[in-house]
């Protein structure tokens, strides 16, 4: 056993790093060394606390004291006071913004922990391949409760009261959906779990299925009990082999334990689940398309009504919910509707899982209460923008969503506010962009996705999105005109207005929201033939600065198309005709002699 009495955890996240956390760490090490305390105190660099706004952060262990905004000058005081004299440095303690009180023990600082894990409650806790670990953490208790204590109507009432809305994107109230399906009379009904997560950059559903498959199975059984279905189907992407594997294991175990199958828990309720595979079609996230795909058909959507709740899989009433929605259900039953409804905003209850990605330090999966602001997500959880660049936009809702900008940073995130801001909740992809991202190119990227994923059934989506993409291409190539911008807007509007399904109706959102938020960037592309982010190749040139170039020939040797000429020790020149703008020269140059014009 070591003799270490104190651990000092210094945040090594990029945000804190920028505010000198590195020097702080070194200073502590020097101070400890000077005092000969190496055997008692150890300094440790940690990952990001996600609380960059208050960084740099130093946490003292084992007493969990949490010092914020630590400066180099504070180091000595902390060491002297805290470690040697055993007194806390009050002025550096976190101050509760509401009470103004200093909080010392981070264990009592739950409010700094912006995340609440409901859907992800078991992810990273339990072994997903062991049903007993799930059972130990209240697994299948909710199912047992509804089967023995609650009528389907009463259960639906709890779901309605909880305010849970569909986490797949649309945000339809879950309890209401169940109620509608229940009301339809039929000899056979189905419940479906939509696990066809197709948003590029979103992987919430996959994580839930990989980390906690039983919660989905349990919720599907509850859904079956409420709606009157004895058969569940999980429609899952074939690209998720691990999730499929774990789901299969979970199904097998649940059957062995009698939690799926006939006469569950001796209540006479029968329910079992089958897996159906997607095969790479984004549009199959739309429920009518999903149902066609499950029937072995092309995943083309059909006009609603009739809704799946009336006529779905094989023409029978079918209730479709997504993975994350299901993952919330057992908790709501166990903890009650009121508990759940306390979290979130007026019209959006509970939490939302986001896949935070892009130009952000803490890329990862987060679960936050509805109503949190974008600023909190980015700067207090996400650890801020990578490489200290300037924040430019956040894309939510994937190809169907829009871009949120600086002005939206303090908007509470919920279904309605995101729509009002020109985006949408979507399934929960959250891509952060910085000053080096071109908004026109981003819009083009999303349109390319839609063009590839359009099923081709309706003309506005099939042809319209292609034309939008072509216009954006024209603009990024420097051939756009101001009239194109009007055309872009009008066509986007018509596609939204006339497309058959949600995919087409939302596909122009990236265009419209970038036009609304970054019109000046579009104008620069069109009028000045300039891309300020330096992303649009046709609008930029790599130039060698004669003053910095020493003629090392490194760039010329690395140019894949031999576009750079110049004698050794002479200033080099890039042939713009030959240049393919790969940027290899600039990356290689050690003298900052190459820049983009």
């Amino acid at each position: 056993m070591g003799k270490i009495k104190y651990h000092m955890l210094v945040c090594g996240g990029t945000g804190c790093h920028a505010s000198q956390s590195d020097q702080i760490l070194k200073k502590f090490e020097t101070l400890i060394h000077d005092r000969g305390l190496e055997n008692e105190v150890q300094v440790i660099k940690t990952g990001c606390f996600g609380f960059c706004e208050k960084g740099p952060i130093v946490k003292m262990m084992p007493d969990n004291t949490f010092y914020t905004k630590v400066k180099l000058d504070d180091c000595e005081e902390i060491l002297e006071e805290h470690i040697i004299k055993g007194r806390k440095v009050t002025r550096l303690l976190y101050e509760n913004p509401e009470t103004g009180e200093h909080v010392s023990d981070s264990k009592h600082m739950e409010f700094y922990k912006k995340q609440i894990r409901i859907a992800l409650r078991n992810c990273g806790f339990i072994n997903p391949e062991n049903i007993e670990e799930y059972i130990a953490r209240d697994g299948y208790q909710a199912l047992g409760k509804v089967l023995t204590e609650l009528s389907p109507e009463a259960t639906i009432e709890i779901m309605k009261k909880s305010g849970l809305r569909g986490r797949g994107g649309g945000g339809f109230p879950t309890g209401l959906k169940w109620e509608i399906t229940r009301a339809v009379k039929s000899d056979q009904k189905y419940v479906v779990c939509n696990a066809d997560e197709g948003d590029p950059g979103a992987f919430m559903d996959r994580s839930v299925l990989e980390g906690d498959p039983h919660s989905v199975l349990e919720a599907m059984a509850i859904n079956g009990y409420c709606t009157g279905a004895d058969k569940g189907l999980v429609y899952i992407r074939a690209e998720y082999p691990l999730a499929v594997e774990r789901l299969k294991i979970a199904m097998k175990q649940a059957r062995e334990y009698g939690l799926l199958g006939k006469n569950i828990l001796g209540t006479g309720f029968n329910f079992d689940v089958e897996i159906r595979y997607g095969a790479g079609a984004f549009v199959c996230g739309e429920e009518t398309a999903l149902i066609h795909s499950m029937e072995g058909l092309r995943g083309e959507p059909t006009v609603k009504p009739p809704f799946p709740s009336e006529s779905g899989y094989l023409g029978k009433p079918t209730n479709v919910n997504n993975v994350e929605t299901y993952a919330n259900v057992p908790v709501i039953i166990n903890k009650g509707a009121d508990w759940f409804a306390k979290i979130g905003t007026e019209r959006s209850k509970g939490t939302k899982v986001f896949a935070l990605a892009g130009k952000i330090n803490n890329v990862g999966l987060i679960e936050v209460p509805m109503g949190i602001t974008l600023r909190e997500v980015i700067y207090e959880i996400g650890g801020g923008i990578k490489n200290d660049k300037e924040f430019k936009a956040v894309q939510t809702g994937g190809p169907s969503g829009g871009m949120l900008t600086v002005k939206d940073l303090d908007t509470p995130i919920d279904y309605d506010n995101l729509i009002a801001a020109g985006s949408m909740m979507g399934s929960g992809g959250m891509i952060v962009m910085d000053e080096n991202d071109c908004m026109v190119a981003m819009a083009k990227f999303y349109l390319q996705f839609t063009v590839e994923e359009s099923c081709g059934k309706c003309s506005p989506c099939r042809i319209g999105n292609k034309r939008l993409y072509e216009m954006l291409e024209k603009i990024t190539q420097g051939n756009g005109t101001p009239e194109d911008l009007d055309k872009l807007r009008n066509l986007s509007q018509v596609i939204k207005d006339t497309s058959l399904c949600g995919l087409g109706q939302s596909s122009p959102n990236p265009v419209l929201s970038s036009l609304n938020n970054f019109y000046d960037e579009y104008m620069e592309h069109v009028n000045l033939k300039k891309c300020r982010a330096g992303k649009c190749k046709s609008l930029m040139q790599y130039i060698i600065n004669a003053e910095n170039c020493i003629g090392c020939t490194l760039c010329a040797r690395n140019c894949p198309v031999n576009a750079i000429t110049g004698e050794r020790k002479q200033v080099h020149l890039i042939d713009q005709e030959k240049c393919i703008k790969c940027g290899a020269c600039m990356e290689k140059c050690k003298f900052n002699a190459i820049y983009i014009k």
Partner: protein
Amino acid sequence: MAKIKLSEKKLEELKAVCKSFNNEKGELINVLHKAQGIFGYLPAEVQEVISKELNVSVAHVYGIVTFYSFFTMTPKGEHPVSICLGTACYVRGAEKVLEEFKRVLKIQVGETTPDGKFSLSCLRCVGACGLAPVVLVGEKVYGRVSPDGVKDIVAEYNS
């Protein structure tokens, strides 16, 4: 067109797959998944056999195969290279990596090198966004790939 004979053994395997799904029309997509597992791809003759077994038209089978991007009618290379073009990878420079692969392998997306060693495809999000940009060679995942690293990756499989 010459009639191609499928290997008797694989043909039996395929028919057994169809039978395991009760030769149900509605199981077409599941059958195609399994068939692609057996053959590596879905050549016309495989689709024709499935159409007969499931009693659906070949045109319908082909309509399904061409609708879903997971299904392919061209044999993949020995080492299928897939570049993730999900948004996270895109904003972290996946396009440049793709360009470099095209240049190094001298093939376009959806093609296979003449020696059958490599094929190139794009995919949407493997969920390893923290490692963006991500490249898959077979089952192996390469994270934080830069255009510079492409040659090394290819070299790993070329020895």
